[in-house]
């Protein structure tokens, strides 16, 4: 299992959707951390969300919903990504972005 602890490997201060929004944006987290981890053979990827000062919704949408826009299927993501946080709303919000993007992709 691949483990990504955001506070240790990325930043304690993630924010923003795109690279121009700051150094620790959602696009960068997706492209530099999530996509490489998903492209490796690791079956499950544990993402530890706790220990950061907060997430804005655009970071979460770009990082996780963006994976569906990149071509990963929602079913695969929901199966392989294991989200860990004491904040239940964070996990549900991320799953919502993955499912929403999947619905948009299938309805287009």
């Amino acid at each position, binding site marked *: 299992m691949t483990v990504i602890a955001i506070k240790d490997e990325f930043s304690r201060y993630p924010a923003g959707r*795109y690279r121009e929004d700051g150094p620790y944006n959602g696009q960068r987290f997706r492209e530099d951390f999530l996509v490489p981890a998903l492209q490796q053979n690791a079956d499950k990827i544990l993402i530890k969300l706790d220990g950061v000062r*907060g*997430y804005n919704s*655009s970071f979460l949408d770009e990082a996780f919903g963006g994976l569906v826009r990149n071509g990963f299927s929602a079913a695969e993501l929901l199966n392989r990504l294991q989200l860990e946080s004491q*904040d*239940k*709303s964070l996990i*549900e*919000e991320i799953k919502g972005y993955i499912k929403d993007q999947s619905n948009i992709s299938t309805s287009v």
Partner: protein
Amino acid sequence: MEYANLITWILVIGGWIAVHFATLSRERRKESREAVSKIIDDLRLIESLAVVFNTSDKYDFSCSVSLIWRVDRAIKTLQRVPLKTLHIPTELLIRFRQALTTNTDKSSFLAQAHDSEIVNEIHHITDELIDEIEVAKYLIFS
């Protein structure tokens, strides 16, 4: 005589235990009610900050960061003891984060009018969250 003494002692100790736990329970309810008052004050403060941030002509990075951190802290506080006993719906917490952090990116920031959809939603979701907290407080802590 000894039997009477024993009964007296049992009553004294039993009474002390009952009073102790009643006091403890009252103190915990009081602490919980104070925590509710504090989170409501915090939510109103966050609402004001969000309106100031969104209606500013220029993007304010430090205000954006402060807003994101305060929203995160409030959501976490609502899911920890003693406030987790309020059982605020997760969906409401998600909508709160979405409404208050939706316009916090520098690349897409748009100054909002006071009657814009974003500002209205900030007021609406904050009111909804506070209503939910107050109803739960009444049902659980009173």
